[in-house]
């Protein structure tokens, strides 16, 4: 092996360098074309349900709503909270909006509060969206997506739309990635609503 090595080692080194260069495609100059499209999921959704014993504590979410008032989830303790991450630019969000709007009205007497988190959006288009779908529940304006970041330790929403259900004790009970349907959300909520704080 050894006598053979010397002439061959240089070739190996050169090739290794080549291969390594090929593997690590680092950023180049400013002329690189940019990203295309937003990252959100299509028609498929996935839901995660946490059993009462294994529910992570939800972070303390608060902020300014698109209409300019203050909102803090801490004041909703004792109620079930449906936290929906959306944007007026996101087509699947438009798909689920009617179901969310209807359910928010229907479940209000049972102590279910809906809160939106409007991300990467402008206030005018957010308000236009809410008026189109007659959404009456408040939405926190979060153009920089900081609320999703607060959920990173527990269960971060990985796409838009995402919905997180927080139980009466302020713990995360379920998470849905992708647009929800009336039935899905209703089915997920029923046992959580029946729990006592």
């Amino acid at each position, binding site marked *: *092996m*050894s*006598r*053979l*090595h*010397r002439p*061959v*080692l240089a*070739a*190996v*080194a050169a090739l290794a*360098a*080549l*291969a*390594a260069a*090929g593997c*690590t*495609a680092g*950023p180049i*100059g*400013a*002329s*690189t*074309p*940019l*990203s*295309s*499209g*937003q*990252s*959100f*999921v*299509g*028609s498929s959704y996935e839901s995660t349900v946490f059993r009462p014993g294994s529910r992570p504590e939800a972070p303390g979410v608060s902020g300014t709503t698109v209409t300019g008032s203050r909102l803090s989830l801490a004041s909703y303790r004792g109620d079930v909270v449906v936290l929906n991450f959306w944007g*007026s*630019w*996101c*087509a*699947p969000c*438009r798909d689920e909006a009617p179901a969310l709007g209807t359910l928010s009205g229907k479940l209000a007497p049972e102590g279910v509060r809906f809160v939106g988190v409007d991300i*990467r959006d402008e*206030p*005018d*288009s957010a308000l*236009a*969206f809410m008026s189109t779908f007659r959404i009456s529940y408040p939405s926190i304006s979060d153009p*920089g997506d*900081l609320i*999703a*970041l607060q959920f*990173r*330790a527990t*269960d*971060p*929403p*990985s*796409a838009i739309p*995402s919905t997180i259900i927080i139980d009466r004790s302020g713990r995360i009970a379920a998470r849905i990635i*992708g*647009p929800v349907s009336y039935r899905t959300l209703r089915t997920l909520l029923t046992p959580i609503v029946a729990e006592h704080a």
Partner: protein
Amino acid sequence: MTTADPDARIEGPQRTDPQYARPALAPPPAAPGTEDAFADTVDPAAERPGGGGPAGPRLGVTGWLRWLWRQLTSMRTALILLFLLALASVPGSVLPQEGIDPAAVSQYYAAHPGLAPILDKLSLFSVFAAPWFAAVYLLLFASLAGCVLPRTIRLAGSARQKPPRAPRNLARLPFSASMSSAEAPADALRSAERLLRSRRFRVQTGDGWVSAEKGYLREVGNLLFHIALLALLFSVAMGGIFGYKANRLLVVGQSFANTPTDLDVFHPGRLVGPASLQPFEISLQNFRARYVTSGPQLDQPITYQAPLSYRSSPGAPLRHYVLSVNHPLVVDSVSVYLIGHGYAPEFTITDGTGHVRWQGPVPFIPVDQTSLTSEGVIKVPDARPAQLGFAGVFLPTAVDVHGQLQSAFPAALFPRVSLVAYAGNLGENGPQAQSVYDLDTRQMHQLPVPPKPLAPGQSVRLPDGYGTLKFTGYTQWASLAITYDPGQLPALISGIVALAGLILSFLVRRRRVFVRAEPAADGRAEVVLGGLARSDAAGGFEAEFTELTARFNELHAGSRVPSTVLPQQERSEQ
């Protein structure tokens, strides 16, 4: 030894030095001949007759497996795999890659509708994630590991080994010299031993002889190179498993958080989940671009600067950084590069009912990098009585060339925006995602809007009571590439170590020097020195041997001039 056939590593069993081949098992031979003085390192298994060929009649399952393993771990296979790896990365730089530039891949699809699906089936748009790439990679890994580990064990054995006994007839070695010493044989040998030890030779003595060896670092360097190569492959793999790449387009004044929902393009490694992203947030304060304004370099960018403010995690202190090309921001081991920029014209769109349905900047994408002529789409899904859509062109420095409006300069000296308006259904009312950069006009009709380009502050009234659009101004955006590669530093270190090992194995020669002293008639000693070097391509051993002989001669004043015998055999390999 001048043979060029790479397989002729072993001339024959008589050239095998058992000490090297099986250091831990075989004791030194009692009386080796000169041929045994310095044989090559030999894999004892490789030369077993019939062991290397597939034709042996008694080759069972284990025999075949052993044969396969030996083939895999051979130098030749490793080289072929390395060539294949290099070859396999070629399409990665020739064809657009999904992970680096998804837009270019879609363009390729549009340009080659027949070929693209076939290339996609062969994973040629994501070469470095392709199964065949992984196969080559893993085989190379196994091959190197299978080669390096036994060698390491063998080196550890040979490093503890003492030099072999001196051959009987030193005059038959490639280099030899004889002289008569004024001292007794035992004293002459003792001074020879002292001399060799002072030159950091490893020395063994016996009855009437001294044997010394030097240059173990050659093999150490060789092994270092191989191990570093393994570490390099491992580091790159680590980067692929635990690293991620993402892109984000950020308009001046906006901010984003490093979380999957807030990234435009996100390519996580195999074991990267949403929770493993470093929780930093970045906001773009401004964007400055300077261009050459005259001469042949006109339009060329001089500098791009993107002042940022950022927090490494929520609640962490706010810091500032000026991002520029090739000066990434490193936050929490994640590198954020500036990879692109463009304009974002700002619009206020009022619908037919008099409500403002859109207000803000819309990123337009450059279609021409030198003039920054940019195209973009504005969607107003909540406009009444119908949804509105606009396809526009932004010209930073608009000039009229033969009735055709063009951009003459990348800076916004005379910004104009030209729009085509549509009303109808944007086609967003389904669960399917839609790109914010595409306008689906299949269910829309074009509105007859005067084609006059708009200057900042100007507005256009849409016909039939659809509303108005005002071009209020413009801002800029920067696109950022976010890369986390935990294998980068280990890969760099491995590369440096591999290079160091390579240099070491090139520069260091392994050589042996033997001394025999016999009592001569007058009570003096007849001293014979012999030496040989393996792979003395760089030369130098002859000089070293001559110098050693001269030095030894000085120590034995009164002895006659040494007769240095030049190489009898050509030991050089190249």
